């Protein structure tokens, strides 16, 4: 402590004391570290985009509520792919995989990960309540269609229904393709059974029942248009917010899906919001780890090369990493989490924090080179560079803390972590660099070795920067004009910088969960990312008209609400009369059919009509490009895609039998078939025509989990888009159209939009706040308005040039890299600040010396900062990569303008125009 009382600045006294008392300093450091370790243990890594959505947005809070309250919104979608299998095996294999997975995930072994598995629609529910769920116009058709379930009246009614006023809508055919395929299959089986019966077989009731089930209900599996892929919905016990199980359990479920699919010769993958969140966690954590390692190794390697001291990794590395650790500790005490941005910042902090060490060590080495002894060199180095370092750090930290005024949590969190990070690094360096140098000196003394630093053949080189100084001093006017012109020309391009609005383009490339989203749109005609509306469960009456209006929109494939499964009282009242008519008609026809013998000629006429109807539907399917429907229809009519007869159809068999057989025999055979067919159809339709209301408890589990919140107070409306909603052009169509019906929709696409909007507007405000804070600090530091303004010019040119280059090269802003821009205010101005300080010390006419003395450190600090930022470039996640590119480019530009433009401008101002750049009050730094 005695040494601290000697002469010199407080900083130099501290450095000399710390150099002489390293043990004490290390004890202080240990104590601080122990306390901050508690905070570090409290930090959670929340590396999903979802976790940084703005909490003050209604869309985001609604989305959070949906994630937590509606279990199906978190479902993992397993896509089982049998496209590599022979077409005739694909469907059966896909179904086998889905069944096997459904069984496995329902077992107790997966009870901690899976709360529900849904591979099929609930057939039983539809068989009991199918008709009460239908709209009046459909029921009106059903009333006519099932007025009589005997074969002849049924086929006649079917023909009438197919020939009713035709809408000719090719796109509608595409929408109903899966239903049409199943319906056609059912018709084919009914006719096949009839042909067998007419051929002499006894009608098989089970086959008739199965055919009618296919005709009435359809395929229970969620199959693709080509039936070679299928979907399985797995409800996890966790959500995207439960970070621990998110990765572990999703990995486990995914592994099992892939394993089982492979055993059957198929493949499988997972997608959905939760899976994308898992992938974000994994790729960003991988990126974070890789970047951190890369930054540390490269920077310490650079330090060894520059300072040629073997212990540099320890002297610089220990305070550097402690600074990061302390920041994590303070983060734990304050906001308790690191998100993608703040985690990235901690990596960048490696590049920023090392700057202080470089300035301190460079000063120390230069003083030692100048012949000073250890303590004197430490004191002199801290005296000369300490104030600049502290001013630089405070300027940067203040610029970061100024961002706390932002509206969004994401920027405020970044502001806090960034500001604390700079201060932690500064303190760690001020504490430990002199202490560790002292420790090194003692070690050398104990070993009785001469300090290698003193016998180095080469001093820290400054040739390059001295050369730059020469150039700047020789032609300052020319340099100012050229760079001003270049910067201005680039800045003109800056309005053309685009904003990345597709969150999926920010994810890692080649993610299976993202690729499966596109595949689902192509093969299943549905996208996993839908829009939602939360509604009050007590007011379901608003839902039918809302979903109807939504389904009228071209961009909407389907709008589903709980009232599709649980009709309102008004809907029930509207539908019950139709159901009543159907049930009455069934009773009447049951009595009548027992007495009537079918007329074979009438049957023949109706079958001819039915064949024509199916051929025409096949024509439309070919015209509309709905190949699967065309194939299904062709398999019943025996035509190929060109309309040529290529196979004997069930119609051909029926016509041949009916035309050649004795009419009486045909009538008897038809009657035998009818005796089996009519009661089964009547029974199925009667069961479906149940008129009772449906309660929540009666609903299939998948429906409850989809539409009802856990507390039962809210219901959900889901709006499925026609295309992948992340595609920019379509997203705008989809969201704009939905907005014409409701302003209450939400979903990941809208929440992400909010994030982009807020990030964009908040970043502008944050830049303004940072500029003001930095300006005030510069004013306080230099006490000279002109110098403060001059110092800002290179920063402005750096920004303008950065935006211009981004526009010209097509690099887009996204909500990660745009938020990093305000950081550049604090970091980018550093170099100019150091040059100012030195120039004020060196005095007019000594710019060459100024650059020679500060240039090396400035160049080195810029390189280390660039290493810190560029370490994100190899990241898998494209958002991290683009941030790395933008920030590295920004630093390079800031350096260019700081070491060329800024000194040239200083020369013009101070030496040609004669401006007084010295402090206007106080006299801490004087020019010669």
């Amino acid at each position: 402590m005695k040494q601290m009382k000697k002469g010199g600045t407080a900083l130099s006294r501290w450095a000399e004391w710390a150099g002489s008392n390293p043990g004490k300093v290390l004890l202080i450091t240990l104590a601080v570290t122990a306390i901050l370790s508690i905070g570090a243990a409290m930090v959670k890594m929340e590396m999903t985009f979802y976790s940084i959505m703005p909490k003050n947005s209604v869309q985001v809070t609604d989305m959070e509520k949906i994630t937590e309250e509606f279990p199906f919104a978190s479902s993992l979608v397993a896509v089982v792919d049998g496209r590599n299998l022979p077409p005739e095996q694909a469907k059966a294999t896909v179904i086998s995989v889905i069944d096997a997975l459904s069984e496995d995930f329902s077992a107790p072994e997966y009870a901690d990960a899976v709360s529900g598995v849904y591979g099929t629609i609930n057939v039983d529910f539809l068989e009991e309540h199918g008709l009460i769920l239908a709209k009046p116009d459909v029921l009106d058709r059903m009333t006519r269609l099932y007025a009589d379930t005997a074969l002849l009246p049924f086929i006649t009614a079917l023909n009438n229904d197919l020939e009713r006023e035709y809408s000719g809508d090719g796109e509608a055919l595409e929408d109903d393709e899966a239903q049409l395929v199943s319906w056609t299959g059912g018709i084919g089986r009914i006719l096949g059974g009839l042909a067998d019966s007419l051929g002499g077989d006894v009608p098989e009731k089970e086959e008739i029942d199965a055919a009618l089930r296919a005709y009435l209900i359809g395929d229970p599996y969620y199959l693709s248009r080509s039936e070679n892929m299928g979907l399985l919905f797995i409800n996890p016990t966790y959500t995207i917010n439960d970070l621990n199980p998110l990765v572990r359990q999703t990995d486990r479920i995914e592994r099992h899906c892939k394993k089982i699919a492979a055993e059957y010769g198929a493949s499988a993958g997972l997608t959905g919001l939760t899976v994308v969140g898992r992938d974000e966690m994994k790729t960003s954590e991988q990126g974070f780890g890789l970047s951190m390692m890369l930054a540390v190794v490269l920077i310490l390697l650079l330090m060894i090369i520059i300072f040629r001291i073997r212990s540099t990794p320890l002297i610089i590395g220990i305070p550097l990493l402690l600074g990061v650790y302390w920041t994590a500790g303070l983060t734990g005490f304050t906001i308790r989490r690191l998100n993608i941005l703040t985690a990235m910042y901690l990596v960048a902090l490696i590049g920023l924090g090392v700057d202080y060490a470089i300035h301190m060590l460079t000063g120390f080495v230069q003083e030692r080179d100048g012949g000073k002894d250890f303590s004197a060199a430490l004191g002199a180095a801290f005296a000369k560079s300490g104030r600049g370092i502290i001013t630089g750090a405070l300027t940067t930290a203040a610029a970061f803390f100024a961002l706390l005024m932002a509206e969004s949590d994401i920027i405020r969190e970044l502001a806090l972590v960034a500001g604390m990070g700079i201060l932690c690094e500064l303190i760690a360096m001020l504490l430990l660099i002199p202490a560790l140098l002292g420790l090194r000196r003692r070690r050398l003394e104990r070993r009785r070795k001469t300090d290698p630093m003193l016998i180095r053949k080469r001093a820290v080189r400054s040739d390059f920067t001295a050369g730059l100084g020469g150039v700047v001093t020789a032609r300052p006017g020319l340099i100012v004009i050229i760079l001003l012109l270049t910067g201005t020309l680039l800045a003109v391009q800056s309005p053309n910088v685009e904003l990345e609005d597709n969150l999926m383009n920010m994810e890692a490339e080649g993610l299976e969960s993202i690729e499966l989203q596109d595949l689902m749109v192509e093969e299943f005609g549905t996208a996993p990312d839908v829009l939602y509306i939360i509604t009050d469960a007590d007011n379901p009456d608003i839902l039918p008209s809302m979903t109807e209006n939504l389904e009228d929109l071209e961009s909407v494939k389907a709008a589903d609400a709980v009232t599709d499964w649980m009709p309102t009282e008004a809907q029930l009242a509207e539908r019950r009369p139709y159901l009543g008519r159907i049930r009455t008609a069934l009773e009447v026809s049951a009595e009548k059919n027992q007495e009537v013998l079918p007329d074979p000629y009438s049957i023949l006429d109706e079958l001819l009509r039915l064949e024509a109807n199916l051929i025409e539907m096949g024509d439309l399917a070919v015209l509309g490009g709905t190949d699967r429907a065309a194939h299904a229809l062709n398999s019943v009519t025996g035509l190929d895609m060109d309309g040529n007869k290529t196979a004997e159809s069930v119609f051909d068999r029926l016509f041949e039998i009916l035309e050649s057989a004795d009419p009486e025999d045909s009538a008897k055979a038809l009657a035998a078939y009818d005796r089996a067919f009519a009661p089964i159809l009547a029974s199925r339709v009667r069961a479906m025509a149940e008129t009772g209301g449906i309660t929540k408890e009666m609903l299939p589990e998948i429906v409850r989990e989809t539409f009802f919140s856990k507390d039962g107070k809210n219901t959900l409306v889901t709006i499925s888009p026609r295309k992948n909603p992340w595609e920019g052009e379509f997203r705008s169509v989809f969201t704009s159209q939905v907005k014409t019906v409701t302003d209450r929709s939400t979903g990941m696409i809208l929440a992400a939009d909010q994030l982009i909007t807020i990030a964009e507007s908040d970043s502008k405000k944050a830049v303004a706040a940072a500029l003001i804070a930095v300006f005030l600090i510069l004013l306080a530091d230099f006490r000279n308005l002109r110098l403060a303004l001059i110092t800002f010019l290179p920063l402005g040119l750096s920004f303008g040039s950065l935006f211009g280059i981004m526009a010209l090269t097509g690099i887009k802003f996204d909500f990660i890299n745009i938020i990093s821009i305000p950081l550049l205010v604090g970091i980018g101005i550093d170099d100019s600040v150091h040059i100012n300080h030195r120039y004020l010390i060196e005095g007019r006419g000594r710019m060459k010396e100024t650059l020679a003395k500060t240039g090396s450190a400035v160049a080195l600090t810029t390189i280390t900062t660039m290493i810190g930022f560029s370490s994100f470039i190899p990241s898998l996640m494209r958002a991290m990569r683009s941030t790395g590119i933008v920030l590295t480019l920004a630093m390079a530009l800031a350096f260019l303008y700081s070491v060329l433009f800024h000194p040239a401008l200083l020369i013009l101002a101070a030496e040609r125009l004669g401006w007084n750049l010295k402090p206007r009050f106080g006299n801490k730094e004087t020019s010669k």
Partner: protein
Amino acid sequence: MTERKILKRTLMTAAVFFFFNALLPAQTEVSADAVLKKADRIFELDNVYSRSTLSVIRSGRAQAPQEMESFESDAADGSARSLTVFRAPARVRGTAYLTVGDDLWIRFASTGRIRKLSSSAKKNSAAGSDFSYADMGDGSKTYSDQYNAVLDGSDRLDGADCRRLVLTPKADNRDLYEKLVVWITEETSLYVKIEYWENGAAIKTMLLEDYRPVGGIEYPFRITMRSLARDSESIIETETLEFGSSKVEEGLFTTAYLEDIR
């Protein structure tokens, strides 16, 4: 200059400014209508015969091209009439659409049967393409007949300076789009691009290209309709086009003729 003079000059300038400002909307409207009317001359042609190919690309997959022969003529009462007969693919060779005013029929070559289409079908997809029946041909009904136009600015498209007009329906007609945005070349008054709006968003875009002179009028020989709500695009490429064609006979536009098509 005295204070009074300055005040007088300022007031006069303001008066002139407000006078021209008041005139401006009326002038814009007249001008927009004139621009639209001039571009609409491609719809005013009668007795049009054409052979063209319709290609539909859905989800990146090209479907079998549809070759069509079309006849268009206005009835005596001015209502639009058109007959489109498919020549390919083989499956629909001879299948035909007939439009007479608001009525639409389809005749299936495979069964020889004729079916009437719902009157609400005009905005539905024709032949599975991105064109609606109304887009495919509403006879001589022009945009200026059906829509009010307002000049909305100018853009440069395909190397040509274009006026951008916003069109809104003159009457509440469900067959009309909520809004159209059309781009018309300044120099030649040709449609270059049309955006079709429904429910607050552009749902499809039509590009009109490869203009060639036919009978003294420039006509687009390639028309592309791209859906913005679905992953599909339809292209009509015209091979033959005749105005005042002798092939367009009165008897074509009847359901009786549909029955005779081979």
